[in-house]
């Protein structure tokens, strides 16, 4: 059976387990709703500047995403299934399978957050196509970085603290670009203005995923 089929089998397993246990989805949706309702009820309707909207959107996506991704490998170790994956398949299959699951979970989360945000904050988006591209590329970039960090911390004692410490320097550049790009979109700009931000949001996960794929065997087996 081909490599791709094995990757799909692992991602499908994660999605199936998640749909049955709601291990991440319930807490994430709850987190998203509480965050947005709290912001919306306090200062929501007074926000009119694109920069504040962009900041709030990405802070909500970031924290929900961090919570979701940090669980993916930890859950395998806690359930004693990590060694099952080590015994039965290549590290590359595990990395790409988990990465795809992270993308799916992040994309789902982003959709929930954005729909709620637009509804609760009465946000008007000049170009929905640009907005969706920016949110998708940003969440993919976040997921690419958090997946490898989650793998690194999964077998350590101080998982939560270490995850936050390692995430900060890796995620900050991508967060700045995503906020800046979203702000531009909310002010109403042409696609050409966004090209630099989009290029970074494509290059960043490409580099992170390539390096992570090369290093994953050591992270996973050591």
């Amino acid at each position, binding site marked *: 059976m081909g490599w791709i089929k094995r990757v799909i089998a*692992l991602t499908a397993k994660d999605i199936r387990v998640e749909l049955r246990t709601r291990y991440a989805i319930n807490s994430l949706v709850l987190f998203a709703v509480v965050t947005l309702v709290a912001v919306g009820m306090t200062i929501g309707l007074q926000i009119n500047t694109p920069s504040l909207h962009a900041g709030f959107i990405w802070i909500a996506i970031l924290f929900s995403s961090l919570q979701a991704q940090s669980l993916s490998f930890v859950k395998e170790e806690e359930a004693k299934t990590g060694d099952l994956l080590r015994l039965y398949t290549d590290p590359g299959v595990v990395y790409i399978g988990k990465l795809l699951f992270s993308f799916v979970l992040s994309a789902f989360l982003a959709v929930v957050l954005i729909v709620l945000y637009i509804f609760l904050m009465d946000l008007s988006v000049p170009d929905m196509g640009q907005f969706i591209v920016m949110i998708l590329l940003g969440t993919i970039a976040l997921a690419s970085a958090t997946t490898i960090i989650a793998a690194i911390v999964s077998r350590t004692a101080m998982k939560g603290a270490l995850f936050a410490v390692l995430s900060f320097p890796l995620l900050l550049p991508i967060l700045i670009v995503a906020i800046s790009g979203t702000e531009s979109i909310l002010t109403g700009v042409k696609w050409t203005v966004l090209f630099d931000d989009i290029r970074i949001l494509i290059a960043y996960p490409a580099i992170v995923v390539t390096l992570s794929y090369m290093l994953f065997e050591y992270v996973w087996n050591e």
Partner: protein
Amino acid sequence: MADNTTNKLQLNVKSVSHRFGRRRVLSDVSFRCETGDAICVTGHNGSGKSTLLRILSGLLVPTGGDVELIKGGTKLGKSERRRALRLVSPEISLYESLTGFENIELVTKLSGVEVSQSEMESALEEVGLEGRGDDMFGAYSSGMKQRLKIATAMITEPAVLLLDEPTANLDDAGRERIYHIMHDFQVRGILIFATNEKQEVRFGGQVVGLD
């Protein structure tokens, strides 16, 4: 005429030692076996039986010594070795929120093996779990879990089977089924099992004592 020796596997365990921090768990363990052999690893609790099996499976790198799996005079690489070896251990679980069939299907797909529904049903039947393939693994008793883990390992047709306490949590009928599987397997592969059960030691052509 086909040369049967080229298909035979050899497992060479050379002076394997292991430490966890400053505590030495294994010291200079050596043995050699080939297809058709059965090795019984015995020793008191904490003597390093499980650690030795984890080292043999490739899950743990020994702090000293080496483990070689040789086929046709060539030492197998990591991925070939991974495909050849299966470890069943109390420390390794299947997925609680997947059914028996789904667990078998996942493991076979991950290891690159295609199996049909009837093959999965036969595998369950062999360990006495017929009719339970659609139940969640989490709903199985501890004995049933052990049987499913063995069925899952066997269906991928390993060349080396490593069993850590193979009959733990099993009733008499379950033990007999597993003994039957062990007996059948040792004819065509290398069977290495760790146990303290005296009645199981009889399966081992060689006994590796870690006391």
